[in-house]
């Protein structure tokens, strides 16, 4: 049996338990080696840290079970007895566990609304970019950071009850380095940026659809959305919309009443990042 190398408040015998954004999580596995791999990934996802939780308080219990098959060792993941990952290969399984834990926190976070979005800060206001996976969100965030914006997240805009955004500075997941689909994790510092630490108001929400080769005119003039239209555009990216629609609508209403919300088609992230920051500066000065 391998020896436990991580020693902290969140690690006990065959279990990780912690609280993040008010969500109380427990993860169990037969081997401490598996838990250590998951813990290292979770540390990158939640760099601002965890809070302690008591055993009896755990709301979401993840259990990892492995079995030997003719294709090698395969893993299953259960969340509160429901199978959420089936027969996964070992190489990526731990990333998938991290993903399921992250999604659980995002969906059930207390007094927070998690939007699937990239976020940067510019002149102490947030630019929120809601988008689906594989839409170039992280690439655009990385380009904005390279141009001096402060990194908040490439995955979630975490909104508090007042509609302000707080940092979720997980490591950036960048695709397109090895191939269009393989994701590589890198710290914001490795691309020359810094991560935000303060909760800030949202200055702008950008609904952008990527179109290869799309040229943005010098005087870019995106379509401004009304509050109602804006919320309808943002809603599909709000993780807790089915669990707590009232709270989500209240928070989004506060956000939409203050922020500039635009919709556009964009081209390459590198060119578009400059246009976006210039526009935001003009609009907010």
């Amino acid at each position: 049996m391998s020896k436990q190398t991580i020693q902290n408040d969140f690690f006990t015998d065959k279990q990780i338990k912690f609280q993040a954004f008010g969500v109380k999580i427990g993860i169990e596995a037969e081997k401490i080696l598996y838990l250590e791999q998951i813990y290292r990934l979770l540390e990158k996802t939640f760099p601002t840290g965890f809070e302690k939780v008591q055993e009896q308080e755990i709301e979401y219990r993840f259990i990892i079970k492995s079995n030997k098959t003719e294709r090698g060792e395969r893993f299953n993941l259960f969340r509160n007895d429901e199978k959420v990952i089936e027969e996964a290969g070992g190489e990526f399984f731990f990333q998938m566990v991290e993903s399921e834990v992250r999604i659980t926190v995002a969906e059930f976070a207390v007094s927070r609304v998690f939007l699937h979005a990239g976020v940067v800060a510019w002149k102490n206001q947030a630019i929120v970019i809601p988008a689906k996976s594989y839409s170039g969100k992280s690439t655009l965030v990385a380009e904005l950071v390279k141009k001096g914006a402060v990194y908040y997240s490439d995955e979630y805009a975490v909104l508090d009850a007042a509609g302000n955004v707080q940092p979720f500075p997980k490591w950036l997941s960048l695709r397109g380095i090895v191939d269009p689909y393989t994701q590589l994790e890198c710290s914001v510092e490795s691309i020359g940026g810094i991560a935000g630490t303060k909760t800030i108001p949202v200055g702008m929400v950008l609904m952008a659809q990527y179109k290869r080769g799309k040229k943005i005119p010098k005087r870019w003039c995106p379509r401004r959305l009304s509050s109602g239209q804006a919320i309808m555009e943002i809603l599909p990216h709000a993780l807790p919309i089915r669990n707590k629609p009232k709270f989500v609508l209240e928070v989004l209403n506060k956000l939409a009443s203050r922020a500039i919300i635009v919709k556009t088609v964009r081209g390459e992230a590198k060119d578009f990042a400059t246009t976006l920051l210039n526009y935001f500066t003009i609009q907010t000065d």
Partner: protein
Amino acid sequence: MNNSQKHTARKEGLVIQEMPDEVLVFDLEINKAHCLNETSAFVWKACDGKNSVADITKLFGDKSGTLVPEDLVWLALDQLKKENLIENTNEIVVDFNGMSRREVIRKVGLASVVALPLISSLVAPTDVSAQTSCASSHRAIGCHCDNSSQCASGNCANGTCAAAVRGGKKNIELKQQK
């Protein structure tokens, strides 16, 4: 059309968020969000079970400071009925005197300076959280798969979504099928 009909806006099972010129309504029964523009919102709020269609037309005219055609209110009611935002929808009889809805919209649009009633709707997706998980139809690398079309990378290798193959395995499979 019977302009003495009185209707009541549905309130049960809805989350309502008022905004300056619009109203957002979330239907908890079917997880559907609706955005009512100013005209639809006004008509909906005026449906208090006491106001007739004629009353609502007059109220809206007073508010907008212009003469409002009654058909405008009927158009709004028609949409509200369709989205189940009015109680007892079976009792609402919308009849544009033999004209199609499109014809009515054109007629009302030309005759009125106020915005046509509009309700935009969307069903809250079940898979917002699944976009990055193995439950998605575009599964991430490492997820279990039965065929390549289930993987975002387009490459299902030995039952697991793997990195993309140069040239695109999905494309190769499609070509083979043809």
